[in-house]
């Protein structure tokens, strides 16, 4: 009865708010979103219209193109400008596909070094951040001392990023290597590049890491890591871990939603940047071929 008699106020529902939200966040019409940087970036270059087929695994290859999902911090124009700057940078440096667990070498200019450049080889143990802040950490053991180096992906001092061995590990973060024996993170500085056959999927290295005895930098028994071998702890540690576990969190649908960028938005973003990215990649491949072709002639 109550429902019938009194007036209802409709609010925050249905299509209207969606529209409103889009108006708030996107300061450009859809056509502008599709080809944003045509006039701005390449100036007078006329490009052939290509129907971009964005591969579905783009979000793994270019995770930093997805914005920070925190709603309070989002602004479509800033995200767009950031993406444009990122693509500009990618035109000057080849940022290859890599994952946590890949072995990489980074050459960068360094004003402190005697020859003004350094090179660091190591395993990628962490990849963080989005946009221009994206960074990754390499780890290696040099002279029996574990050394880690953090690099910003879009830092203009980086000259070259090489992936020596492209592979994934069982976990998204390999911070436990800090508590593992040095063998697990020792890599030769003069390692050769290992090429994968064209089109092959990225292999997953199923190596299980056996940690040193405690104390550790984190309570790994509570972190639910897949790549850790038996930790060899007393029962009380596992009991406590079980007490503190939050198994319900995987059912918290909204929590998951607030941490991700929805598929529709991802498509929009990658449709915007993919043609540029693809072009850069094609150009790089051409250059590589040229190099390969030229090298022997030089030697001769």
């Amino acid at each position: 009865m109550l429902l019938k008699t009194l007036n209802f106020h409709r609010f925050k529902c249905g299509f209207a708010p969606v529209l409103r939200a889009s108006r708030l966040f996107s300061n450009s019409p859809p056509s502008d979103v599709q080809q944003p940087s045509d006039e701005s970036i390449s100036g007078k270059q006329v490009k052939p219209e290509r129907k971009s087929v964005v591969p579905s695994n783009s979000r793994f290859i270019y995770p930093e193109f997805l914005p920070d999902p925190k709603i309070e911090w989002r602004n479509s124009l800033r995200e767009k400008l950031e993406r444009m700057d990122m693509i500009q940078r990618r035109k000057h440096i080849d940022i290859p596909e890599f994952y946590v667990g890949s072995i990489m070498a980074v050459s960068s200019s360094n004003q402190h070094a005697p020859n003004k450049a350094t090179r660091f080889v190591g395993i990628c143990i962490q990849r963080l951040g989005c946009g221009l802040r994206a960074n990754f950490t390499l780890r290696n053991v040099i002279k029996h001392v574990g050394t880690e180096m953090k690099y910003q992906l879009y830092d203009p001092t980086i000259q070259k990023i090489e992936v020596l061995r492209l592979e994934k590990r069982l976990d998204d973060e390999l911070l436990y290597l800090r508590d593992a024996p040095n063998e697990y993170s020792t890599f030769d500085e003069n390692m050769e590049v290992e090429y994968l056959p064209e089109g092959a999927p990225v292999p997953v290295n199923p190596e299980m890491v056996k940690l040193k005895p405690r104390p550790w930098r984190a309570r790994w028994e509570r972190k639910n890591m897949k790549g850790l071998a038996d930790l060899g702890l007393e029962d009380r540690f596992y009991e406590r871990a079980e007490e503190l576990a939050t198994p319900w969190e995987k059912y918290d649908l909204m929590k998951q939603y607030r941490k991700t960028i929805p598929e529709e938005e991802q498509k929009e973003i990658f449709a915007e940047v993919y043609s540029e990215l693809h072009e850069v990649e094609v150009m790089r491949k051409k250059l590589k071929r040229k190099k390969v072709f030229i090298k022997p002639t030089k030697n001769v």
Partner: protein
Amino acid sequence: MSKIMKRTVFDLPSSFRITFGGPMVLQSRTAHNVRAPRIKYPLWYLQRERAKDDQQLTGDNRAFVKEAVHDKFGMPAVIHGISTYDVRSPLSEDSVECLNVEWNPKLQRTGLIARKLGNYPMWLDNGKSVLSTLLQVIDNHVIKYIPPGEFNPPRKPYSCPNHKKPLGCLLVGAESADPQYFTKQYCGLFYREGMMPKKYLGRFMVSPEAALQPGTPLLASHFRPGDFIDVRGKTIDRGFQGVMKRHGFHGMPATHGVTKSHRRGGNVGHGGEKGRIFPGTKMPGHMGNRYRLHKGAEILRINHKYNVIWIKGIASPGKTNSIVYLYDTILPLRKHKSPPPFPTSKVADDDQLIDSYKEHVYKFTDQTITYEEDK
């Protein structure tokens, strides 16, 4: 309900009548922790928001009203990256009462209204990374100019060093919007100048020489890369906070016999003759939601296509997507060294100039940074 309220208010005997926005006597030693005075609106401020009631219009009729709006003012369009309206009769800059006065350091230019977009890193030419804040100048137009003689604000700037200078008041609006969502009186402010209602209004004190014709568009090119600006905005509202968060006190130890006062401020006063709490003592209270000025921020880069200004540092008050006001800085050593666009910049015709950078800022179109070897 509101009717009843209104009546009850106005039927009170005059002695009991509630006064709206009367002058408040404030005693203060330090300006920053005094509660903000009750808002007394300036004369030009009119109630903006219309009651949000269901108008029970059919879809057809709603479309018709929208069509009439578009016929009167222009179609919605994206100009400089802002969804606004392609206003029919924007007064071109030819009609500006340009006095052709040469700029000199004593003249005060108008400011701009901008939206804070967030921050991201930029790099300098030496490879150093600096965080920058992005401010977008959103569809700014001059609404009204009140000459110095006529300008009589309800709250006099008692402590303002400039109050003896004959300054005029320039009203600037930002972001055009559908008049259906505002009150008639608010829209009248804009109709008088043949403009569309704006969502945001700002008041800027300007020298009479820097006055602008109503309808003049203001762009990000009003400033140049390398200039220093002041950014005024409302800080993030953090609610009632303790002294540790609000004033950065250290609190008290976690152990060693401390009970129930780990995050308390401790002593607030003296004994004896001075046995009282001095005004201005730092205590818990409401934090944020005040207007604050970030002075002397350097402009690193300007995007003319989207009217975005990058400033150095992340100290600008306010959340992402909040509104801030930009002024020429008041810091004496950072004022303009060379003449800035005066009274404001012209609308540039060439679309080629997209980004302009300050000297020594790394442009993303540049090659990788390398250093020359020592000799």
